[in-house]
């Protein structure tokens, strides 16, 4: 996988200065603050963050699934194929969802209608967007069920969601999302509700499908273990801003932002199992709520490297600081010596 900066083709998705504000009780609360990113064909970008970081809101904005302008304002650009989705009418947007951009969610049961057969639910999108005969649609549904690894697809296409296991339901949801061969698949915590063995199967399935179709994927998760399984690049989000971005290897092995370092050190490792390696790394305090962000860097009250007069005064920009493919939003990056980072990991 080449790094996106060296890629010559146009990105499938290009997000510029995406800002989302929720309106409530006459107040506007920004929840996503001007984020930028690109995803290329065949590439998987993982968006990582804890609850409240704004990662799911971002993905909902890309799909235009957020409430209307009375409740929320979205600014910036979401470009797919030269079109800014934020400017489309709802009717036009309907023709984009499916063939251009599709989404799968955490809980497969809520994405499926319990009183319709799964085959009909997959066929619905095809019937809506494509002029195909019944027999052609049926063949396509069978093909999709086979693609997502559902055994005995002829029989399963007439089953109801309730008769399927969680893993099989998520496969059906993936088949629905893939029905119109989208250029971009957004996967919002698609394996969080599944058992580990099933999760491993679904991640492998997504990788495999991506290899075959070359689609771009935005994968949203809070789990760095899952990130390591699926991502080419990683964006870490905190309080509605991207705080670090880089290639998978770089972010996992050389995290630069103290927040990312803290997150990684808090994950228990299989290699340490049973060794009583002592306390896990923690991040003091809590994720601030939107609308109550501290001055300066949003992370500074929790940051072991924060310096008064520096970190609490200005919001740092997401900048390369010497590593163009691994920008970070930290004013202290030059001062945080490599030895400091090692201390954090113990």
């Amino acid at each position, binding site marked *: 996988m080449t790094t996106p900066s060296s890629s010559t083709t146009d990105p499938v998705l290009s997000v510029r200065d995406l800002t989302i504000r929720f309106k409530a009780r006459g107040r506007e609360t920004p929840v996503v603050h001007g984020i930028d990113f690109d995803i290329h064909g065949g590439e998987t970008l993982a968006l990582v963050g804890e609850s409240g970081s704004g990662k799911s809101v971002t993905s909902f904005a890309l799909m235009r699934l957020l409430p209307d302008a009375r409740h929320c304002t979205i600014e910036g650009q979401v470009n797919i194929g030269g079109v800014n989705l934020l400017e489309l009418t709802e009717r036009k947007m309907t023709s984009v969802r499916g063939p251009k951009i599709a989404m799968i969610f955490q809980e497969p049961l809520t994405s499926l209608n319990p009183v319709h057969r799964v085959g009909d639910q997959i066929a619905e999108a095809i019937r809506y967007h494509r002029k195909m005969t019944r027999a052609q649609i049926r063949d396509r549904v069978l093909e999709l069920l086979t693609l997502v690894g559902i055994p005995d697809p002829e029989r399963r296409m007439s089953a109801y969601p309730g008769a399927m296991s969680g893993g099989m339901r998520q496969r059906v949801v993936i088949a629905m999302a893939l029905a119109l061969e989208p250029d971009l698949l957004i996967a919002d915590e698609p394996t969080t509700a599944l058992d580990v063995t099933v999760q491993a199967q679904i991640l492998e399935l997504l990788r495999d499908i991506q290899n075959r179709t070359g689609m771009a994927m935005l994968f949203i998760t809070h789990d760095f273990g899952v990130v390591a399984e699926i991502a080419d690049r990683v964006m870490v989000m905190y309080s509605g801003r991207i705080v670090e971005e880089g290639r998978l290897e770089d972010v996992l092995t050389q995290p630069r932002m103290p927040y990312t*370092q803290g997150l990684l050190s808090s994950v228990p490792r299989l290699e340490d199992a049973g060794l009583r390696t002592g306390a896990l790394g923690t991040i003091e305090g809590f994720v601030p709520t939107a609308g109550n962000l501290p001055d300066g860097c949003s992370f500074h009250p929790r940051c072991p490297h924060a310096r008064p007069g520096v970190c609490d005064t200005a919001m740092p920009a997401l900048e390369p600081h010497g590593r163009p493919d691994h920008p970070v939003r930290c004013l202290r990056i030059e001062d945080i010596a490599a030895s400091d980072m090692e201390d954090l990991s113990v």
Partner: protein
Amino acid sequence: MSTLIEAVDLKQHYPVRQGLLGRQTAAVKAVDGVNLRIHRGEVLGLVGESGSGKSTLGRNLMMMERPTSGAVLYEGSDLAGRSHKALHPYRRKMQMVFQDPFSSLNPRMTVEDSLTMPLRFHQPELSAAQRRDAAAETLERVGLPRSMITRYPHEFSGGQRQRIGIARGLIVRPEFMVADEPVSALDVSVQAQVLNLFSEIRESLGLTLLFVTHDLAVVGHIADRVAVMYLGQIMEIAPTRALFTAPKHPYTETLLSAAPQPTVGARGARIPMKGEPPSPLSPPSGCVFRTRCSHATPECDAAHPELRSRAPGHLSACIRDDISLVPAVSDRPTSPRRKQSA
């Protein structure tokens, strides 16, 4: 090491009734013949996937649910046959922490009310002031300021609520605690804080802990020994390091290989789990794991593997002694500390 609590051929079967007369047509064997000893002062991890019966087993040991058959021995005396009243003295010794810190606290009760409730029940001789003191002290014990005692659950974050849930268990000074997926609903950084709290209280209070979870890395961090459950039965039980470095049951091998790790280069090297999970209504004949096992032979159809000792303290319920399984980690005397910077 002395045994604090022991399950002897423990079974929890739920009848499935169908038809006009509601006749029992089948049974879900949530726990099916479990033998298990938990030593005083240890943390026993209980892992398994959804539907494996791990939560039911935890509830059985607590007598929150009376087992269909079998015995639960607490310091040698059977709890399963006791009347509700005769169980009362044991209730204080055994406490539980639940998964969801949002639904396990009453939103209309202050922290003080929630924490003192167990005391009213178990130590009615205490005055209101004494109860209040005990609540404040326990709150401090779990890392929250005393002053928060007058607050309501909605004023707390998920991690703080889980601390309150732990405090509610600790306030009666139990000997044994069952924690059922206590960190699964929490964000990673908060999960680490709560895990550290568990490590700390088990040391300082000498607590015996049954830690029920689906997360192998979590169990590897917290547990002294690990039991692996599948379809109501224990497949393997071993000291934690041994389970991760030398698994003896194919199901453990599969689980370990499926656990995602935040390391580069681990991608895709999986031992696949065959097929679909069997219905707990009609588990496979013979070894219950055989339909999904990559090492199954025709003998497994008829075998009913018992837990057998395969190494010191290491039991496995598999007839195949001849296979060598892939460990999650190779056993090195010291694991190099992970580095975070180049």
